[in-house]
């Protein structure tokens, strides 16, 4: 009897442990974590019953920090790791290893009522740095430009400075928002608004994407990097992905995972 109980208890403990082992903790980028990764997780769970996910999308900086601190299995990031992050990781014997998940184009969006159809890269830089503050200076209707940006935890915030602003500071009056969806919502409300969002958010109501140097962020142009603001998006792991993290990374890179990425608005790795 006692032996049977012991075996049952052991089985219970093993079962609980096994269930806990299947929880995958993912932290980081809002660009990846708001839509793509939750949908990938749902599809993965359907194929792998019993797997649980904890997903926190609070910006790429938090994803990289989570890998450095050992608080996550996968760190989502829409930017590369900064030297200071690599240095901090090395100090803790953490090997920040990137895996490209999908490509993204950062779309410049304005209110759908704006007559503007396109901007040059130079005009974009002037707008976001505050050198130009009225739409009439770039071919729009007269009106003060309202700039909406991501907050400083965001990889897109950093990427945008590098890709579009020649590493200059944002205009003093720009408003920092927590996520792509908030930017879309504000630009949709404000006829004088301008912002930038990942491609997955560029088809929202009330906004329109404008061409940059004559190019719209189509999948082909993003993949070929001929669209000015193209970028890869990443999973970061401590060393090469292993175990449960590897399984999910592999699923993301599989044909099914890439199809989900395409469906949401990202550009898949290969055509």
């Amino acid at each position: 009897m006692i032996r049977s109980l012991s075996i049952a208890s052991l089985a219970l403990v093993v079962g609980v442990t096994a269930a806990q082992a299947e929880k995958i903790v993912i932290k980081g980028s809002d660009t990846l974590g708001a839509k793509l990764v939750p949908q990938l997780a749902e599809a993965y769970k359907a194929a792998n019953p019993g797997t649980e996910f904890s997903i926190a999308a609070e910006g790429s900086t938090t994803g990289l920090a989570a890998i450095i601190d050992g608080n996550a299995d996968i760190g989502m990031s829409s930017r590369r790791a900064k030297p200071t992050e690599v240095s901090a990781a090395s100090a803790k014997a953490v090997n920040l290893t990137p895996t490209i998940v999908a490509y993204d184009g950062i779309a410049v969006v304005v209110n759908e009522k704006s007559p503007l159809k396109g901007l040059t890269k130079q005009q974009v830089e002037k707008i976001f740095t505050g050198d130009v503050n009225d739409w009439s200076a770039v071919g729009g209707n007269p009106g003060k430009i309202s700039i909406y940006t991501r907050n400083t935890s965001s990889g897109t915030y950093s990427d945008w400075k590098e890709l579009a602003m020649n590493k200059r500071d944002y205009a003093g009056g720009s408003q920092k928002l927590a996520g792509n969806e908030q930017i879309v919502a504000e630009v949709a409300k404000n006829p004088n608004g301008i912002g930038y969002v990942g491609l997955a958010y560029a088809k929202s109501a009330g906004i329109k994407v404008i061409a940059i140097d004559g190019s719209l962020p189509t999948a082909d142009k993003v993949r070929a990097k001929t669209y000015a603001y193209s970028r890869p998006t990443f999973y970061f792991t401590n060393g090469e992905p292993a175990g449960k993290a590897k399984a999910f990374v592999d699923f993301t890179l599989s044909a099914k995972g890439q199809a989900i990425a395409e469906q949401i608005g990202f550009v898949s790795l290969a055509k």
Partner: protein
Amino acid sequence: MLKQSTVQLMALGLVGSFAATAAAQDSGALIDALVRKGVLKDQEAEQIRSQLSRDYAANTPAGKLNISSSVKELKLSGDVRLRYQYDDAHDAGTLFNGTGSTNNGANQRSRYRLRLRVNADYKLADDFFAGFGLQTTQNNDSGNQTMGGGTAGDYNQNYGIFISKAFLGWTPISGVTLIGGKQANPFYTTDMLWDADISPTGFTQRFDLHKIFGFSGLELSLVGGEFVLSDNTESGAPNATLGHKTVTDAFAYQVQLIAASEIVEGVKLTVAPGIYTTNTAALAATTSDGGGEFNSSKWSTKLDQLQGLKLALLPGDVSFKVAGKPVKFLWDLAWNADGKARAALYDKDMSGKTATVAAASTVTVVHSERDDWAYLAGFQFGENKKKGDLSFMANYRVVGLASVDPNINDSDWALSYTNMQGPKVGFLYSLGDATTVGATYYSAQSLRKDLGAGHVSAGPGSQRDNVQVLQVDMSVKF
């Protein structure tokens, strides 16, 4: 056909041969070119970038710094300044109402000075931050060391280093910032009220209401500060003369609402109404300048009490650009609602009694309402951000006897004395992106002439008839 790993290895070698380790971060263009040529796939390129970053971290001085992973960002900054300063301060003499004799004693002094400041600012995990500053003197309102200012025989002396800032802060939610310790002045202000060199000690709270509530078009911030001026022994004897029943620590308090908005295209208006006051605790006696936040050398022995400071404040500015250069018209205004009590601290006879002055002449000295007011108006043109930049500033201020706290006002203009009026003008030219030269001239004349030097003794009042100060600076930021 070459194996993929061989291609990667060759690419890494190629990149490495072109990019010194210290410049690994700049190898991106070469890697991008290899991707475009089809030599590398994107994922392979990322692995090479990652390896180069690790090499950079491991093989460069920056990479060898073992910084706690809780530190998200560390900013090191500082500056060295060389200064020539000439002071020409004339004593008030016996009387200035023309009824007494005149004794215009003069105090001229030229000094060659230097200042070093080093700051470290840390951004930490979980929205905390911290920092510290080091500088060359203990003085609360100046980091200057005077060359040759040591004791006799101690030529070419070395200088001490003191902690000028040490603080920690937290941003629990966007728009809310809480800081404790010795910190940068959090208020919108001018040097009429606060000397720019003072780092107040205590606790501050800032609420950026436009961020918290998400409105636009108006930046609205509420800032509060509670500063510890003097730690008193609570079991000590209370000052019966001042009516104290218990002994408490001495505190100063300031609260301010800062509102800024673009009133017309390209023109920004900022106004910051507020109050500054203190409790009535005694200040611990300090015998020399630099004894802490409180600077006793600017007070008479009668002024070691924090009484009579209930200031209403209204600084502000209008800023815009002319020919791409920033222009700012600014003002400051302070009114001491408890000015009469304050004036009485300088001498009880300020209540209207006839006073005997040093030359045995007598004069009736009465508190005047203008003793309670201080105001400043001026402008700034240009900024110094890169080589060749030139900026100018000028302002004029009138500072009544009992209007502001001489412990914290600008220690250069009128050498902190109140009951003075006059201009401050200056320019700054950028010799390089981080190197500037400039000059500032301060001039102040006594405001009320009916206060005798013997009447208001060694306090910050009308001991001086006029004070001229010239400063010529060269500084380098790093």
